[in-house]
């Protein structure tokens, strides 16, 4: 297979490529438009911290959308869980770790409750979670009504949303650069290259088709270059933030589960054809519970990230976050009809939307313009999606 044939064979991936290209275009545009301010380490660090809690929600939302449902309750639910964390730290006097565990457990319980309404009671997810949206909005106001905004002064808790991973003290070379971040970036590249090479060897040993060598090297070089570039940017300010670390963990774990495990396969099967899944012995009900349970868990993570980022729990925390997460999932390639949507796509979708806000803020664009531009990007992404699906099928 020649290089061009290999490229042509990848044509069905045009949707994925298109999104990466769009993201690069946005980054380049804002970097030029802001005289490089956009791509500074400090701005990118802030951008990632301010996106992490949406991106984490978007990961859970993607799976919910894949199984043909929606979850409108997660914004205020995240806000409520953030308030629980604040109350636990401030009024119950619990340490950070038990607080995290309580919030995560409550998140799972809340998610399973939604799952119960949808899978067991057969209430359409839109209605069930609209009820959740109302309920959690009320619950949040109820738990904060005596106190108003609860300020969190626990440094360890707040570090999650604002802090950075520690650096090795005493090193004098590259004084302006975060060494641990560089090392982690290097490690990531090494692990990536080794796993790709062994994967290719194994695939070849089965006599399956692999990318031609030149394409393969190009792919390795390109992705390594991207990891290196991102690492360098992060290392230029205070290093990798804890929020970024958590986000990376969530993405790695969820990507692995959705693409490599049986349960991941079954989630997509249920989304693609629930009747067929059921006939093949997959319990649609179980998968629905599982996906909403995971949504609840990630909502808790999001709530923790958000409240620690704000260093407080407010009475309207989480408002609209569910819609940002849904938009991120759709920009990232999820399909309303179900069965389609990747975790990595949604993260990219969240980054695209956040970059637009951030970049336009730096340019001093009016908030009204910002909303409209984001509307065009959302609609454009879905139009592109529909068009590429048609042309390749």
């Amino acid at each position, binding site marked *: 297979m020649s290089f061009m044939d290999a490229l042509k064979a990848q044509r069905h991936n045009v949707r994925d490529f298109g999104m990466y290209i769009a993201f690069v275009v946005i980054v380049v545009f804002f970097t030029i438009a802001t005289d490089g301010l956009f791509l500074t380490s400090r701005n990118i660090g802030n951008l990632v911290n301010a996106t992490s809690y949406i991106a984490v929600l978007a990961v859970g939302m993607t799976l919910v959308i894949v199984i043909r449902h929606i979850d409108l309750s997660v914004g205020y639910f995240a806000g409520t869980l953030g308030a629980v964390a604040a109350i636990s730290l401030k009024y119950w006097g619990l340490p950070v770790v038990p607080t995290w565990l309580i919030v995560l457990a409550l998140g799972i319980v809340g998610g399973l409750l939604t799952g119960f309404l949808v899978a067991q009671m057969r209430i359409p997810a839109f209605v069930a979670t609209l009820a959740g949206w109302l309920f959690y909005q009320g619950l949040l106001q109820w738990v904060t009504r005596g106190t108003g905004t609860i300020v969190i002064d626990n440094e360890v808790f707040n570090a999650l949303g604002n802090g950075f991973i520690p650096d090795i003290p005493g090193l004098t070379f590259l004084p302006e650069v975060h060494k641990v971040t560089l090392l982690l970036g290097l490690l990531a590249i090494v692990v990536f290259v080794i796993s790709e090479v062994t994967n290719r060897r194994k695939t070849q040993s089965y006599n399956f088709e692999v990318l031609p060598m030149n394409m393969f090297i190009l792919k390795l070089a390109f992705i390594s270059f991207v990891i290196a570039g991102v690492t360098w940017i992060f290392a230029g300010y205070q290093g990798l933030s804890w929020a970024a670390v958590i986000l990376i963990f969530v993405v790695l774990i969820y990507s692995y589960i959705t693409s490599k495990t049986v349960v991941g396969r079954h989630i997509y099967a249920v989304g693609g054809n629930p009747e067929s899944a059921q006939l093949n012995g*997959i319990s649609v009900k179980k998968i629905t519970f599982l996906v909403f349970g995971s949504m609840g868990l990630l909502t808790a993570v999001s709530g923790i990230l958000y409240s620690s980022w704000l260093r407080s729990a407010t009475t309207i925390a989480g408002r609209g976050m569910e819609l940002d997460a849904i938009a991120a999932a759709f920009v990232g390639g999820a399909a309303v009809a179900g069965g389609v949507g990747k975790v990595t796509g949604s993260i990219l979708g969240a980054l695209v939307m956040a970059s637009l806000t951030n970049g336009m803020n730096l340019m001093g664009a009016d908030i009204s313009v910002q909303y409209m531009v984001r509307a065009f990007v959302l609609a454009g992404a879905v139009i592109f999606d529909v068009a590429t699906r048609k042309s390749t099928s």
Partner: protein
Amino acid sequence: MVNPMTETTPVVEMRNIKKSFAAVQALKGVDLVLHHGEVLGLVGDNAAGKSTLMKVLSGAYIPDEGEILIEGENVHLTDPLHARRLGIEMVYQDLALANNLDITANVFLGREAISVQLGPLRVMDSRRMELESQRLLERLKIDIPSVRQLVERLSGGQRQAVAIARATAFDSRVIIMDEPTAALSVAAISKVLDLVRELKAQGASIIIISHRLEDIYSVSDRLMVMRQGRKVRDAPITDSIDDFRERVVAYMIGARDDFAGATAS
């Protein structure tokens, strides 16, 4: 060809199956025998009860009366999964494939090969599944370039072939095909029929439901005709196609009946 007369234990035997839906008696005591390596054609007008009978055999419906024997053993099928575990595979008319997944994923749906178990997570052995699906397609002479193709990108005939291949993938004893040639082009139909012949040559026992009598004629050893919830004809196919068609239609519309008065309903 297997001579049914010399065989002692049929692979499937259904005796006096009755099934009612509210006031409608869909099956009024139907007997069915399928021998090893045999292709049984099952025809009848709409509402004759053939699909209901097959749903009973595939575990989707539980009969009100009657018994089912698999390899001579009495079984009480509780659901499609149970039937499947006993080796009864149904290829549904609407295919029951997941369009968003590739061929391999569909072939192995619900029966994924596992490489390692990480706590509650079962990690799939993707390469093994790919390899086995590729071998399966080759064995059945199904012409699809890659098992990594998404099912939504396949033609109707290819999708039907994948659905049939899936039914044969796991040591099935009986394959039931419900209208496998409906909604296909002429070329695709002949490919699907070739596939049925290939399966038969490899020893599969098949029940095939079809409205297309010429398809039944070209692949079946024996024909069973149903009418109004009863069996009205059960005999090997020996006629020429024209005689066959005329005769079958006579049974389908009730002009002839080999079992008149034989069943009490």
